[in-house]
C-alpha cells in the first residue's frame, strides 16, 4: 500500500526458483528497512480471516501467495 496510490505491485516470483527467491528476499528486506510493516492474510481452520505479521522472510508461510507491505503504525491525534 502506498499513500496516494493504493496497491502497488513491488515484486513477484516463484520461491521455488533460486533466482526469484533471492530477488524476493532482497525486496522484502528493502521494504522492511524502509520502515514498512509486512503482513500475510491467512485463514484459520474455521475459515476466519486474519493476518500474520511477519518480520523476516522465513516467517512467511510457504503457501502464502502474497505479502502486503504497509506504513508502520504511529500514534495519531
Amino acid at each position: 500500500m502506498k499513500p496516494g496510490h493504493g496497491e502497488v505491485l513491488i515484486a513477484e516470483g516463484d520461491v521455488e526458483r533460486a533466482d526469484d527467491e533471492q530477488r524476493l528476499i532482497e525486496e522484502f528486506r528493502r521494504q522492511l528497512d524502509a520502515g514498512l510493516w509486512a503482513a500475510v492474510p491467512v485463514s484459520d481452520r474455521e475459515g476466519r480471516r486474519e493476518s500474520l505479521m511477519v518480520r523476516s522472510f522465513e516467517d512467511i508461510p510457504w503457501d502464502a501467495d502474497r505479502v502486503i507491505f504497509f506504513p508502520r503504525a504511529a500514534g495519531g491525534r
Partner: protein
Amino acid sequence: MLLALAATALVALALLSDLIVPRIDELWSRFKARRHRAPTWSYDPGRERRAEARARALLRSCVNEEEWSMYRDLGFLRVWGTLADGPDDAGGTGGAPYAYLIYPHRPILAYLAQTHRLLNEYCVTFPDESRPYGSSRLPDSDDVLAKWMALTGDERRLITTANMHLPGRQLDPAQVRRDLWRLSQWERARMRQLAGGDGPAPADRQSAA
C-alpha cells in the same frame, strides 16, 4: 573617413558596453526561460478514485465475505478483541467479550460487545516515512485494511502504539451507538437471509464509497 567612423563606433561600443551587455544578458536569459519547459504537475481527478478502487479490491480479497459486506453496507469494520483482559491494562473488561470498530481515517473504537459500553478511542495513523516533507494519506479502504491487519496480526502491538483517549474525543458517542445499532440490525437481516428467508435488506443500508 570610413576608418575614422569605424574607430569611433568601436569606441562608442566599448563605452556603452557596461549598459548594453547586461541588457543583452537579460534578454538572453528571458529567451532561454521561455524555451525551458518547466515540469507541470497536472491534477489527475481520477487518481484518487482509482487508488480507492484498488484499495477496495485489496480489502475484499483479504477479509471474509461477512466483513466485506459489513464495510460495503455500513462503512466500518468490526474486529473482535482477543486479549484476555481487554485492550486497556488499567481498566480491563473482566473477561467480557469486546470488539473494535474500524473507521477509515478515524480512531479505532473499543467497546463491550454485550452492553455496547464504549471503552476507548485508539488514534493511529500510517504515515509515509519515506517522504520527509509530508505525504498524501492512504486511500480509505487501505487505511481500514492496515488497521485490520495490524489488529488481527498483533493487537497488543497496535494498541500499545496508538494514542489512547476516552470515548467522545473524536468520535461522537451518539453516532457510534447508532452505528452499533445499525450493525445489530444488519446482522439480524443477514442471519435471516442466510437462514433461507428473503428478509428485507437493512433499512439504513448505505454504501461505504
